[in-house]
């Protein structure tokens, strides 16, 4: 149920709907896009970022919260930890249990590696499960990987690393097939062909979906397959530091049991970081669509062993996060709502941006609509938003479309007494995706011997802005590649003795740079607790 004030705005929206059904808001020129981004996109809010003072990306800008952690100090004192007793000794260690980690572990095992997957929360607790709209792949006769390549490059501002995009688009149909062979249920047409929808910034309709549960469907299946193959999995065991060997190769990690605080030592011939995103750092004070554990841990671990990061000064703000009710503020309202035909509408009932532009410009224009043009809808607790006119979908595509294509969205809002088939949704940008990350090559290798990365924690393939459906493609493409490459790498490796030399070097480097009172990192979990007086706060 919407309050009376908001219903007044809805009435204006309903009055313009018939006209708007025939309207297509014109696309912006590349120049207009650049101008609006600079003026309204949170990436350009200078107070939110700062330069890194140490490390492989010294001088580059990153969000303040992330910069603090990248410059942070290790939990581990190299003088105190005993690396002599190994708790686990494997060929491949996968750090992270989402779509990329699961794919990497399966492929590493298939390629003959003894494999251990460790994850901070449960296997499958990752941003993957919340992904809704689908996975891109150019598999229809009137589409091709070359067109997918062009779409991806344009969306990324033409900054994407070409070899990575090439691999992404060529592997895409294979990934769709692989997932189906494991039992993923893609939405299909009655004749068996894939039901494919458009997406923001895509020039062909190539989004493969499982209703609006695509990520959950993919993750449920991969998790089950990992269990069927009895792959070793340790839950609630984040890595707090990587290990090197005496030859400077990455050789394992130190894990923390989140429940008992015990540390354990893992030796591994190859390590794959698949730690996902960092939305729970709440850059620029935004709410987030990300899961509880998205704190950018892998970036910190990689940075400390000398791996270079790329595009850390840009984050993706999904244009349509929930703006009302406040209980679910910032949660994802899938882009699929727009690809099915819903328009973005201001408080006067008028469109102000084509809903299928890329996410960065749509987000910027929603912020502009609220701030500069003052045509947003303001809720009783001061949250501004614009309308996403979901009822248009059933009008355009037939009654029952929303129920069939967006069951998760229907359910989410029904719980709060809002029927999205009859009423629009109030939305505002929300922190959603880490466009950049650890720089990799086409096999998932980072610049550090023995260290690989896959999924949201790596960077380069999406340039400075990711397209819809390319992340749930990225995780499987590079997860599989990294798993295979890590297994092959491990075969040729005989490890030297384990060391934490990189932590000593880091302590020296940060001392020379004059850094003091930095937090310990990685963050591991956000803290949303409210305390008035705790024992810890009394200790000095």
């Amino acid at each position, binding site marked *: 149920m919407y309050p009376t004030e908001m219903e007044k705005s809805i009435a204006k929206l309903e009055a313009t709907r018939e006209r708007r059904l025939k309207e297509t808001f014109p696309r912006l020129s590349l120049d207009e896009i650049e101008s609006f981004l600079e003026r309204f996109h949170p990436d350009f809010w200078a107070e939110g970022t700062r330069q890194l003072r140490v490390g492989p990306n010294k001088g580059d800008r990153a969000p303040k919260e992330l910069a603090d952690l990248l410059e942070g100090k290790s939990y581990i004192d190299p003088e105190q930890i005993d690396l002599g007793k190994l708790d686990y000794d494997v060929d491949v260690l996968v750090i992270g249990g989402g779509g990329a980690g699961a794919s990497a572990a399966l492929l590493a095992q298939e390629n003959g590696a003894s494999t251990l997957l460790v994850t901070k929360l449960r296997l499958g607790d990752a941003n993957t499960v919340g992904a809704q709209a689908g996975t891109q792949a150019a598999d229809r006769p009137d589409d091709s990987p070359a067109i997918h390549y062009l779409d991806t490059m344009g969306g990324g501002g033409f900054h994407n690393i070409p070899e990575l995009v090439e691999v992404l688009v060529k592997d895409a149909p294979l990934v769709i097939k692989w997932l189906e062979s494991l039992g993923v249920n893609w939405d299909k047409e009655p004749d068996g062909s894939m039901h494919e929808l458009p997406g923001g910034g895509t020039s062909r309709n190539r989004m493969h979906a499982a209703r609006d*549960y695509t990520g959950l469907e993919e993750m449920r299946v991969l998790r089950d397959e990992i269990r069927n193959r009895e792959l070793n999995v340790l839950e609630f065991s984040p890595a707090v530091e990587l290990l090197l060997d005496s030859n400077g190769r990455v050789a394992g990690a130190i894990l923390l049991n989140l429940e008992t605080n015990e540390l354990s030592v893992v030796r591994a011939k190859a390590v794959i970081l698949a730690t996902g995103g960092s939305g729970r750092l709440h850059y620029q004070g935004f709410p987030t669509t990300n899961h509880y554990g998205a704190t950018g841990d892998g970036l910190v671990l990689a940075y400390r062993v000398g791996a270079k990061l790329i595009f850390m000064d840009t984050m993706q703000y999904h244009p349509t996060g929930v703006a009302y009710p406040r209980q679910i503020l910032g949660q994802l309202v899938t882009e699929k709502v727009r690809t099915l035909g819903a328009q973005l509408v201001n408080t006067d009932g008028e469109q102000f941006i084509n809903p299928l532009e890329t996410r960065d410009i749509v987000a910027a224009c929603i912020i502009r609509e609220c701030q500069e043009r003052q045509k947003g809808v303001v809720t009783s607790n001061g949250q501004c938003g614009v309308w996403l006119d979901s009822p248009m979908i059933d009008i355009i595509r037939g009654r029952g479309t929303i129920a069939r294509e967006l069951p998760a969205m229907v359910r989410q809002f029904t719980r709060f007494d809002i029927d999205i088939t009859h009423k629009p949704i109030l939305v505002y940008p929300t922190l959603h995706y880490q466009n950049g990350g650890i720089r990799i090559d086409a096999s998932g290798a980072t610049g550090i011997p023995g260290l690989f990365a896959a999924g949201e924690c790596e960077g380069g393939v999406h340039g400075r802005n990711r397209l819809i459906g390319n992340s749930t493609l990225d995780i499987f493409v590079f997860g599989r590649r990294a798993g295979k490459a890590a297994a092959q790498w491990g075969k040729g490796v005989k490890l030297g003795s384990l060391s934490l030399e990189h932590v000593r070097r880091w302590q020296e480097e940060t001392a020379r740079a004059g850094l003091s009172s930095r937090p310990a990192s990685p963050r591991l979990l956000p803290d949303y607790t409210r305390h008035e007086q705790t024992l810890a706060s009394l200790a000095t």
Partner: protein
Amino acid sequence: MAEVGEVIDIYIMGRHYQVPEGLTIIQALEYAGYKLIRGVGCRAGFCGACATIYNNKNDPQLRYALACQTVVEPEMYLVQLPFFPAGKAFYDLEEIKPSGEVILNLYPDIVKCLGCNSCTKSCPQDLEVMECMSDALRGDIAAVSIKSFDCVMCGLCAARCPQGLVPYNIALLCRRLYGRYLSLPSKHLQDKIEEIAAGEFDSELEELKNMSEDKLRQRYKERTIEPP
């Protein structure tokens, strides 16, 4: 729905706390000072980590919810269920067939279903869980797949079943069988995979990879956009 401003009484594992009205159960736990490790996941209703069982002082009927999507009520008595030792059958999807017999072999306890509907009552996604079990028993894999699609595998059904069935794993098996064997094959997908493997797009991709940014921008501007 209540607005923030008032405080209400809730009971977390039997202990009394006062929290503002209008918070979700997860927000209320954190307001009370609990830093969660288990019992929290995506915080958006998709992962089932925050399965919660509660009743009210004035109504002992047990109710079930996802803590991240449910607003606290006055006099709520709640506990989270972060784990349950539910059984799982191990199988190789390539070695089995999509039949009721296979389901029964892997999950023989399914015949013990009493039809008590505890599973359905415990489902925070309002799924017809018991119907899924009788569909599975009959080998109607398609029906199970459709009816169980919104399952977030929270485990509440398995925790409440007096006969030890694990409906969420049985349903997952059915969905995987459907996707692997019963979903109609997409011929265009196979065709494209073969074309890619034969190198049909290699020279075009090579050209795009080596193109100057100006020319790439031009090419991008000239794209024809398929109507939705």
